[in-house]
């Protein structure tokens, strides 16, 4: 493969792609038809396994394997599409759903067929009202033409699809939190095991996939699993949508072949930081990923290379921070976000995020000493791995990495803030969480 392929974004700006006639003219629903009428669920699954596709939502778990965990027993099985794209910095699914909703629906048909699921759901975050309307319209079209419903295309396979709108909660992007929310409860994560593949939605076997993962499935069938595996690197097959944002000149979604250098993404595609500025640090995979510095820009952008650099690819959201920004202000912003979004079920996360915010505020206001940085680091250590889900870890890892990599700046900041009037404000201090939900966790902020 000499030049980088465009798969998901090949037609993305085609006018009217959200309508089924345009989508079908571009070859849409052909792969669903082929899967349902010419292939068995096993052969579809074989293609997905051969493709080496890894989940695009954040964890990077092999998608084919995830489906293969679904028991074969004759019970109600579910497929849930996780469209609760709340990871700060991520907006790839938004663009896919808005512009090519049928690609997602086709992927859901294929995924559900491989898993043997007869009911499927799209859990879309409530903020995405426009995108939900687009999907609603697309779903109505697909139902009219018989791609969703009973006995699809005469294959004997039936699938229902329900669009479920959330109401604004980051934790509902976590798969078990999402299931609870979809069941009409507060979105608290569940204890695992049992994993959703065995006991998920309504206690039935459930496969949960990200929008991008599902949207890739029709293309895998079209290209062929083994051919798809040749794109990208050995362990990170295929292309990936990356959302680049922050201090860059051309923020946006870019489809890249996994394994290209991160510098190419940030500088060539997104235009790099504004003139005269330098990259100070960057989040490679959403705000939950440990930060990397400008020395790490040549790391290949794929799952394993980033893991080796002690960070992660996550949802593919690159947030670039340039050298005009104080690291403390970003850390405080980040901590406030996780404190607000912590569901409060597990103590280390609920208290850890809260205390981290308090400590960072002390740092910012000049009330801290360098020793507080050690205490803060130890708080992060006690959060990681001690909760039902990874929300707490998602704060602890980037904050920990910031303190480790920019310790000198933290200390300088503390000294400078102490030298000033202790309450002299700083750039991002005193953020937006002004109606601190102390008594009712998760209640509306600001």
């Amino acid at each position, binding site marked *: *493969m*000499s*030049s*980088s*392929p*465009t*798969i998901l*974004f*090949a037609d993305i*700006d*085609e006018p009217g792609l959200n309508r089924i006639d345009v989508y079908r003219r571009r070859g849409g629903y052909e792969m669903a038809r082929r899967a349902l009428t010419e292939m068995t669920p096993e052969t579809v699954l074989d293609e997905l396994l051969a493709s080496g596709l890894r989940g695009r939502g954040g964890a990077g778990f092999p998608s084919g394997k995830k489906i293969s965990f679904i028991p074969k027993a004759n019970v109600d099985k579910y497929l849930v599409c996780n469209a609760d*794209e709340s990871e*700060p910095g*991520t*907006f790839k699914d938004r663009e896919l759903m*808005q512009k090519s909703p049928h690609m997602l629906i086709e992927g859901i048909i294929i995924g559900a067929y491989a898993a043997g699921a007869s009911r499927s759901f799209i859990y879309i975050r*409530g*903020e*995405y009202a426009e995108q939900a309307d687009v999907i609603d319209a697309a779903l109505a079209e697909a139902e009219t033409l018989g791609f969703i419903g009973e006995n699809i295309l005469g294959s004997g396979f039936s699938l229902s699809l329900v669009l*479920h*709108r*959330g*109401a*604004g*909660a980051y934790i509902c992007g976590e798969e078990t939190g999402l299931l609870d*929310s979809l*069941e*009409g*409860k507060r979105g608290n994560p569940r204890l695992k095991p049992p994993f959703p593949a065995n006991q998920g939605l*309504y206690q039935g076997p459930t496969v949960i996939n990200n929008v991008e993962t599902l949207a890739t499935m029709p*293309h895998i069938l079209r*290209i062929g699993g083994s051919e798809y595996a040749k794109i990208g690197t050995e362990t990170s097959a295929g292309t990936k949508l990356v*959302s680049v*944002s922050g201090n860059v000149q051309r*923020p*946006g*979604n870019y*489809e890249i072949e996994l*394994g*290209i250098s991160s510098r190419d993404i940030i*500088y*060539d*595609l997104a*235009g790099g930081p504004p003139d005269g500025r330098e990259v100070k640090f960057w989040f490679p995979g959403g705000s939950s990923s440990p930060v990397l510095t400008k020395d790490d820009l040549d790391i290949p952008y794929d799952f394993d290379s980033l893991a080796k650099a002690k960070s992660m690819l996550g949802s593919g959201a690159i*947030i670039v*921070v340039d050298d005009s920004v104080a690291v403390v202000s*970003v850390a405080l*912003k980040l901590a406030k*976000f996780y404190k607000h*979004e912590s569901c409060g079920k597990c103590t280390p996360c609920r208290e850890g995020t809260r205390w981290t915010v308090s400590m960072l505020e002390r740092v910012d206001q000049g009330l801290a000493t360098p020793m507080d940085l050690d205490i803060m680091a130890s708080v992060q250590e006690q959060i990681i791995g001690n909760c039902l889900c990874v929300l707490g870890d998602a704060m602890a890892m980037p904050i920990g990495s910031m303190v480790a990599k920019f310790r000198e700046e933290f200390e300088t900041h503390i000294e400078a803030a102490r030298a000033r009037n202790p309450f002299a404000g700083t750039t*991002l201090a005193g953020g*937006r969480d002004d*109606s601190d939900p*102390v*008594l009712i966790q*998760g*209640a*509306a*902020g*600001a």
Partner: protein
Amino acid sequence: MIGRRHKRELAPTSAVEEPQGELLPVAPVRDVTRFSHGSRVPGWDDAVDLDKDPAQIPDAATTPVPQTLRTEIEAHMAKYPDFRSAAIPALAAAQRHHGWCSPEAIWQAACVMRLTPGYLVSVASFYDMLETRPVGRHAVYVCTNISCSLCGADELLDRLKDETAGDPEFNVRGFECLGACDIAPMASVDGVYVGPITLDEVAVLVEQIRENTPPLPGKQLRRRKSTDPGAARAVAGTADADAARAVAGAAAPLSPKRSHGTPRGGEPSGPPAAIEQGPPEEDEE
């Protein structure tokens, strides 16, 4: 202790009542007493008053529910294998009907769903978009997460708050990442994503919201073309559907469309030509 401090801070005697206006038909809002049981949320005293028995499922005979609301909630309940799944859609519907998740709204949703009000309150209090106190009817969410903050979202929020100060029609709040960092700083205006918003445009935006006209039409997200040069090339910067189809028509699924950013160790061939970042205003209108 902290809780108590907040109780004092959060118990404005008139500030909460003032913006209610006609949005609040019946809600019995008492001032300080509503925090006596630990709840900072107005209007829910009856449901959580520890001296009382927990509220039961509302009696359908004595709970009037508007027919449109009942129909909508029942339609949601029918979609799911378990009717409880409709809790969020039902609360959202009740909120649209009543302006916020008032006790009356909760009661009506509970009556239709045959659930206790307490159950629905527990759900409503969890989610950011379900309002547990009276708010203005125009929801303006300003994303203040990292990416947007780096682009000036905090100043935008301050300006918006200043501009709408005292107007009970507005519910301006800072929100967590809205998933539109490419148009930072941005806001979701009654569900419509708009950005990037400059501080100069705030006054215009507020005026447009007041007049119920589309907010900053040229800057709405749905008009934007993809930033990816590989995708942008398919339409070659034109809004002409037929021309676009002709260009994209021959595109194989693996068509190599990009000429820059060599992935496999070659020399990068330089950044692509500047992409039109501005909204394609010729699209519509």
